[in-house]
């Protein structure tokens, strides 16, 4: 009985192993190649689920079916217009031909090594074959905007409005290719070589483009001097505007004062003329009497008490003194 149990146990283990090796599970995101004594058999299997295979003689090699990442090493590359920049690229790729892939690069690590050389090389070629702007900008919309702004400023200036131009300068050349096109160029060039490895590039992203340090310093210096120039301009415009207001003040002040003076004098003059006419009309009726009476009044007013007075005895007033 005991021997019998031993046989059944061993038998069932062997059976299980056999059953186990007649099918395999392919998880989502994977593809597989069946090899028979190392030789690939049939098409790669891409459908997830349970699949059959011949036990013992066939083996399975799994390959990733998902989109995979490639991260490039930041490269220092001179552009066509001799600007040193650091370009950091990343790419996404997938295995489209598992068989070729296994035959040429074995596994992901092998693929990454090949991708490094191919993508770095083409990135270098494409970047150094174009001006820096092509890698920075994607379109010429910026030029249109600048034109519009210039027209607007011109219009406002013509309308006499006060405009402060404080745009930051820089190089604004027109773009022929553009950033997206550059990465597509890299993809196109690299794809041709990668096809032989069973790899297809999804895209290449120019993740970071930055100035090399010495260039960066120069750009900063330019930005600083430009800001200083603008600050200076704002200050001097401010002083000018202030002087304008002060000028207006002094002009308005003088105008107000002189106008008032003029008006006052006119009023006085007219009144004096009118008064003179009134006097003349009335006094003309008896000028001699007026002369007399006015003289008398003037004596009373003008001769003060502490004056020294010499009086002739011939005077009419004193005629009875004699």
């Amino acid at each position, binding site marked *: 009985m*005991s021997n019998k149990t031993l046989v059944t146990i061993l038998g069932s283990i062997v059976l299980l192993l056999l059953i186990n090796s007649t099918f395999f599970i*392919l998880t*989502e*995101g994977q593809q597989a190649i069946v090899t028979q004594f190392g030789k690939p058999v049939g098409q790669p299997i891409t459908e*997830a689920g*349970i699949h059959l295979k011949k036990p013992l003689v066939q083996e399975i090699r799994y390959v*990733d079916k*998902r989109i*995979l*990442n490639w*991260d490039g090493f930041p490269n220092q590359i001179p552009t066509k217009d001799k600007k040193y920049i650091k370009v950091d690229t*990343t790419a996404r790729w997938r295995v489209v031909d598992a068989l070729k892939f296994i035959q040429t690069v074995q596994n992901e690590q092998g693929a990454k090594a090949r991708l490094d050389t191919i993508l770095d090389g083409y990135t270098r070629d494409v970047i150094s074959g174009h001006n820096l702007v092509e890698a*920075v900008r*994607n379109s010429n919309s910026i030029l249109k905007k*600048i034109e519009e702004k210039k027209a607007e400023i011109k219009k406002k200036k013509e309308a006499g409005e006060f405009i402060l131009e*404080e*745009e930051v300068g*820089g190089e604004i050349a027109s773009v022929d290719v553009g950033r997206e096109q550059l990465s597509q160029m890299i993809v196109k060039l690299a794809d041709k070589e990668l096809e032989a490895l069973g790899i297809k590039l999804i895209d290449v*992203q*120019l993740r*970071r*483009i930055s100035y090399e340090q010495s260039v*960066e310093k120069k*750009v*900063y210096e330019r*930005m600083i001097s430009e800001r200083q120039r*603008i*600050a200076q301009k*704002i*200050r001097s415009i*401010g002083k000018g*505007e*202030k002087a304008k*207001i*002060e000028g207006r*003040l002094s002009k308005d002040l003088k105008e107000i*004062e002189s106008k*008032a003076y003029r008006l*006052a004098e006119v*009023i*006085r003059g*007219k*009144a004096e003329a009118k*008064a003179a006419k*009134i*006097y003349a009309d*009335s006094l003309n*009726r008896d000028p001699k*009497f*007026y002369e*007399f009476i006015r003289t*008398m009044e003037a004596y009373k007013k003008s*001769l*003060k*008490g502490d004056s*020294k*007075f*010499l009086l002739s*005895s011939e005077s009419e*007033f004193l005629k009875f003194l004699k």
Partner: protein
Amino acid sequence: MQYQKTNPPEVQKVLDFISHLKYPVILGVIILFGITGSYYTVQPDEEAVVIRMGRHLKNTQPGLHFKIPFGIDDVTKVKTKIVHQAEFGFRTTSVSSRRTTYSSKNFDSESLMLTGDLNVAEVQWVVQYQISDPFKFLFKTSDPITNIRDVAESIMRRVVGDKLVTEVLTTGRVEIADNGKLLMQEVLDKYDMGISIKSIKLQDVNPPRMVQASFNDVNAAKQEQEKMLNQAEESYNRIIPEARGKANKLVQEAEGFASEIINRAHGNAERFSSLAKEYRKAPAITRKRIYLETMEKLFEKMDDITIIDSKVKGLLPVFSKEGVTK
């Protein structure tokens, strides 16, 4: 039989014990494993992806669910309701109840970017995204988070690269964020990785640290200008209304003067006319009376009168001592 006999009694005892119990125990253990492995709960902010024998079976929503145990069904839970956030150019270092602290050190390479006029700006931003399809998120790409970060950096540089640095620093923020969101979604859709971008939010957008002082100086100059103009306007507003008032006063005074002299003229003229009318009736005596009255009043006031006889010749006027000493 012989084999069994060689066993020591202690071992034999254990073996007997097992052979006595083996079927129920093994069955019990299997059932126990089966029960614990046959259900799972999905939290309210999650969605679960069920893989049966390697193959995607279904997604399940929050709640209690059953599955086939023993590794036949494999369940992965993904937080689909949560809005995830990726930070660029800075990192949230701690979120305490009182204040959130950020660090922006050592992320220059992430935040510094070239603008369309080949200047440099420092842009910090966050990307908020949701996992819209958990299955795609898990199985379409090998590293979805890296993809999001790579694409976000690339797209932000592309959008900023099409703007002037002044736009980036001032008016262009909203446009950059909106464009960035659209373009990012477009690229991620190409990967078909089940991510939906909710928003891109620009945080601090500054000139690079080295040039910041000079940018601030421009702002200071603007303030100064404003202040200077305000001061000038202020003194204008202080002086001119006062001058207007004074001018008005001058005119009013002149008008007052005018009515005064005219009235006086009328008065004097009337007075004279009345007097002259009576005078004409008796000219000689009136004249005399007025003369004498005047003289009387005049000499009444005088302290020092010298009367000279016209017959005395060669007379020198004699003055009092006080007059000389003075």
